[in-house]
């Protein structure tokens, strides 16, 4: 599978409600890599992700895909290239799980009433990868939080976009499902997609991401391999916590320990 994902932001600034929420953010995504964006609440993580998805107009700078500004890409084309998973995993109607996952095929011109074989296969693959096939017929609103999170992820996988942006995909999941979801995303990156996730758990982020970007007050303050980025100094400065960091055979373990 060849993927040419190349979403890149250059000097990006976004204004929301008159406030400059992010400023001078330059991030170039690479196919095959899993990027974790971390940062304190209100640092602008979601804003960066939404701007990368083409959902927010830049106040300065640009978001481009393959060198073309997203502003000049038709929404339908963009929707096939970039899949976006918002936080919260809301479903407003009690539709069956399979129908919800099939919504991911809308950018490909699929009609829910009559899925073409290619659409059906994409939906099946997405449901299998996330383990939601067993409750494909249940109304999505009756599912538990963990099940809903996986359905939301399946919907995103069904798009089969080369760039996947997931905002807090594991928040409110139990430890097992946190690992399940992050494994799915990492496999996606291994298969050649560019994957970006916003994560709150620094340890999970460090273990699963190839690259870690730290945002603070709307600016990128660190960008690189998790090992290098997660220094105790940075944690003190950005998050205001003393962290306990232990080097293990499988890499560093970082645990927030007490307030500075």
């Amino acid at each position: 599978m060849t993927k040419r994902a190349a979403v890149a932001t250059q000097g990006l600034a976004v204004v929301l409600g008159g406030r400059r929420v992010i400023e001078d953010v330059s991030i170039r995504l690479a196919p095959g890599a899993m990027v974790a964006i971390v940062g304190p609440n209100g640092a602008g993580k979601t804003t960066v992700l939404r701007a990368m998805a083409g959902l927010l107009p830049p106040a300065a700078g640009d978001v481009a895909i393959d060198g073309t500004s997203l502003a000049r890409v038709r929404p339908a084309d963009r929707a096939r290239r970039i899949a976006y998973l918002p936080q919260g995993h809301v479903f407003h109607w009690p539709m069956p799980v399979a129908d919800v996952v099939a919504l991911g095929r809308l950018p490909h011109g699929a009609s829910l009433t009559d899925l073409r074989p290619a659409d059906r296969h994409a939906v099946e693959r997405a449901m299998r990868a996330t383990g939601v096939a067993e409750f494909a017929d249940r109304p999505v609103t009756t599912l538990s939080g963990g099940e809903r999170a996986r359905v939301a992820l399946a919907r995103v996988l069904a798009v089969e976009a080369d760039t996947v942006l997931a905002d807090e995909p594991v928040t409110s999941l139990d430890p097992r499902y946190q690992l399940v979801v992050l494994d799915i995303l990492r496999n996606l990156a291994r298969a050649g997609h560019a994957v970006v996730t916003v994560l709150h758990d620094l340890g999970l982020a460090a273990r699963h991401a190839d690259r870690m970007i730290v945002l603070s007050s709307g600016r990128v303050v660190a960008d690189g391999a998790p090992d290098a980025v997660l220094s105790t100094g940075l944690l003190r400065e950005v998050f205001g916590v003393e962290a306990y960091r232990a080097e293990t055979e499988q890499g560093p373990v970082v645990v927030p320990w007490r307030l500075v």
Partner: protein
Amino acid sequence: MEGQSLATSGATARRTSAALVAFLCALVAGLFVASLAVGAVAIPPGDVLRGLAGQGTDAINIIVREIRLPRAILAVLIGATLGLSGAALQGLLRNPLAAPSLFGAPSAAAFAAVATIALGWTDVLSLALPFAAMVGAFASVGLLILVAGPRASFLILILAGLAISSLAAALTSLALNLAPNPFAALEIAFWLLGSLEDRSLRHVGMAAPFMAVAWVLLLGGGNAFRALTLGEDAAASLGVRLVPLRLRVIIGVAAGVGAGVAVSGTIGFIGLVAPHLVRPFLRHDPGRLLLPSALAGAALLGAADIAVRLIPSQSEIKVGVLTALIGAPFFILLIFTRRRELMGTPA
């Protein structure tokens, strides 16, 4: 194996949906014929058909073609438009309690119509009337969006709609209050009650083009409403252009409701009830819901308009009064059964 089940469950859903549409079409057709047969003079179905073809007695020809036919056609057109408007608004706002009447559109349309009559700008058969009603409906929806803001919660929309409804009602009362003579007052009262009595084919011709525009606009929103099941951001990421979609729904609802009000006065609650009745048969898919909701709306209004002729009373009960008498308790029941989830969602 799963592929099989996905394909078969899709086929089952398609069959159910097709069966529902066929059933509703038959129901609407049956009610249409019944509407031609029922009234002060009961006409047997055979005579109805002869009357339609102009081959009955003179009296039957006139009753069927000139008195009852426009009424039956309007019931179908207005009912369908209201059902479709309700389904589209519910899809856009992702809330089963949304309906044109909750946002003040019909009352504003009625006020605009009343105002043009009260001011002597137009007579009741002029094309200016549906136009004024549409402008009223459009202004109310525009004001609603302006007051509530583009990303308003459902609660704010409902509250703003209530305020706009109250304003339109107060202005209509003022017009009634200042009416120059009892006849003008009577004329105005008509807009408040809502009725299909004594309409002519001219009324049909006046309203139908605008309703056709509304249907085209609203039926085209199916996939966008589906995508909105996931919320606005996810829908936008799937390629839905939210601003044009909102405009499309606002213009569609304003054109449809305005044209309806211009010829029938305010008829409420069809838009709330119709989508609710068909939704469970369509796997709660807000896109597939549109056409069946329109048909259900046509059936509801058709049935209500027959019912008002059958209920024994001194003067005929207005159909708008009947739909409100049935619809409002239904609305209360709907809130009652959904109050837990309504409290759960941050409005």
